[in-house]
């Protein structure tokens, strides 16, 4: 956990521009990841998780999207200041990314081998033959017993889980320092998900890569992550080590989220739920983004936007309840 920092994101802001307005979809996001660490980003659909990841890769969809502000230090270089040419060396090489959709993320007209070899030869000075060997090894690493044959297959012949493993093999083939996995298991069945999660765990240990795991499934987070960033409405609302978050969520949203999932271990008869709907960037409320759904909302929350503040050395939260001298006492509310 205290390894060197691989990536350090500060006050990242990414917006989409429609005709007249700017819609910030990632707003003042800061966090960092260390070597060998797995950081999870959780949050509901549309909360800006994927956009954060794409911003790191500098792959925000053009022409409407744009990184407006902030810094992303990757090995002490600010990626946002790099030339596009430099980014080609970073992407797929130093930082790799896997996407949610295993079914469509591979190019349907090239064989798996083509696609793995292409990436290897593109970034490394090796021959096709060498790339082929490395490819086979990588496929074996991600659990294919018939790696040789798989190299010659077209993606459509593989199942979702297999494709996702191929994606992982590809992402890891250049030994990236950072792996961003954007909902890598959402489309998969639990049994397959278990395989993939296990695989990722193993690999992060083996290669000592930093991993940013994006998901909306707290179960997955609980399985894999060491630290968690909770996002809501484009902002980081809480950052905490995994155990602490599950034991004692600080932000009312984190709390609601944890309580609203049915737990397989125990029995609840009724789930808690967060009322209302998830806001989209074009209908964010004034003040705190969560104010309309928050059971503890105060007047202040409707007027001012809370900032992300350090709760202690390892935790951050964006809520007035935890800001010194503003909230009288959060506990009182809870019992009422």
């Amino acid at each position, binding site marked *: 956990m205290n390894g060197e920092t691989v990536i350090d994101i500060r006050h990242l802001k990414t917006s989409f521009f429609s005709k007249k307005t700017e819609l910030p979809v990632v707003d003042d996001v800061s966090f960092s990841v260390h070597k060998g660490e797995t950081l999870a980003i959780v949050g509901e659909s549309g909360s800006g998780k994927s956009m954060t990841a794409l911003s790191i890769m500098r792959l925000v969809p053009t022409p409407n999207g744009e990184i*407006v502000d902030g810094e992303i230090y990757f090995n002490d270089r600010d990626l946002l200041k790099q030339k596009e040419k430099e980014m080609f060396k970073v992407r797929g090489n130093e930082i790799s990314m896997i996407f949610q959709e295993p079914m469509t993320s591979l190019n349907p007209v090239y064989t798996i081998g083509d696609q793995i070899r292409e990436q290897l030869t593109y970034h490394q000075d090796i021959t096709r033959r060498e790339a082929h060997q490395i490819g086979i090894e990588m496929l074996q690493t991600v659990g294919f017993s018939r790696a040789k044959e798989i190299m010659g297959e077209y993606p459509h012949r593989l199942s979702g889980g297999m494709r996702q493993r191929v994606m992982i093999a590809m992402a890891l083939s250049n030994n990236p320092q950072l792996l961003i996995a954007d909902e890598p298991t959402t489309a998969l069945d639990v049994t397959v998900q278990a395989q993939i999660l296990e695989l990722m765990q193993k690999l992060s240990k083996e290669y000592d890569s930093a991993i940013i795991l994006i998901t909306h499934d707290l179960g997955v987070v609980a399985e894999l992550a060491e630290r968690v960033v909770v996002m809501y409405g484009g902002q980081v609302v809480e950052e905490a080590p995994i155990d602490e978050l599950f034991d004692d969520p600080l932000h009312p949203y984190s709390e609601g989220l944890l309580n609203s999932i049915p737990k397989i271990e125990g029995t609840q008869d009724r789930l808690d739920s967060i009322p*209302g709907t998830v806001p989209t*960037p074009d209908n964010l409320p004034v003040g705190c983004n969560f104010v309309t759904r928050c059971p503890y909302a105060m007047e202040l929350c409707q007027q001012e936007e809370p900032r992300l503040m350090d709760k202690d050395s390892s935790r951050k939260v964006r809520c007035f309840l935890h800001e010194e001298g503003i909230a009288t006492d959060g506990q009182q509310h809870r019992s009422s």
Partner: protein
Amino acid sequence: MNTNEMKQKAKSPPPASGAETLSEHESMFRIITKKFFQNKLAVLGLIILLVIISSAVLAPWLATHDPNAQSLTDRLAPPSADNWLGADHLGRDIYSRILYAGQMSLWVGFAAMLSATTIGVVIGSIAGFFGGWVDAVLMRIVDIIISFPSIFLLITIISVFRPAPSMLIVVFGLLSWTTTARLVRSEFLSFKEREFVLAARTLGLPTRRIIFGHILPNAIGPVIVAATLAIGMFIIAESTLSFLGLGISPPTATWGNMLSDSQDLTIFLTAWYYPFFPGLMIFITVLSFNFVGDGLRDALDPRVMEK
């Protein structure tokens, strides 16, 4: 830049407590029109079409001459105060003829489109909804018709029978419904398995109601687009037939037969305005239909509704 300031603008005041947030209530029609009117070319096309259509309709009032009145001494007279766009090879006023020709050309285009679309929608719906052998048979028929280079058939039929406007319309209709039919069929196939159609079935709605009340309204968007584009296509087809000498008989003016009457090197060299204006009308009209069709395509895109 002050990011906070930007954010304030993007945010709206909090909604009344407890109420669920909703985007502004807009009817389907409003959204489509709004989307359509954002497309400048489409609006331009629509305006031009309205002008052209109304000038055709109002031809009796707008025309300065009887469209068929000849003045052989004015043969190929250049544009002047009397003949605004000049006179044709029989001394008829080109301006007035263009107005009246618009009636016939547009009528042929519209009517042919209607017949093709009607046949296409009916057959496509049947094939798509019922599937099975009905579908197989109908689609083989479509394959057969599509395989004919339609101009061969068109020419054969028209040259064998008489190129009366009604004949043209029927033949155009019979040869061109296949596109619509395929379109409707594939829409049906995709909608048939959509959950809202299954839902309609679970509610016990009768088949007729499912087809006409649930599937067709959703499938009609591409049909409207295709129909719009088809009008332009038919106008060109009519003019092409006229060019080949198989168009509507004189003296009834259509833009196509005006053009074909002027397909003459001598006329080109001495009276450019004669071939120029009818050609321009065809071109502008078809272009406008294309603009409007394209605008409709975007505006009617079902994705607009669903996400």
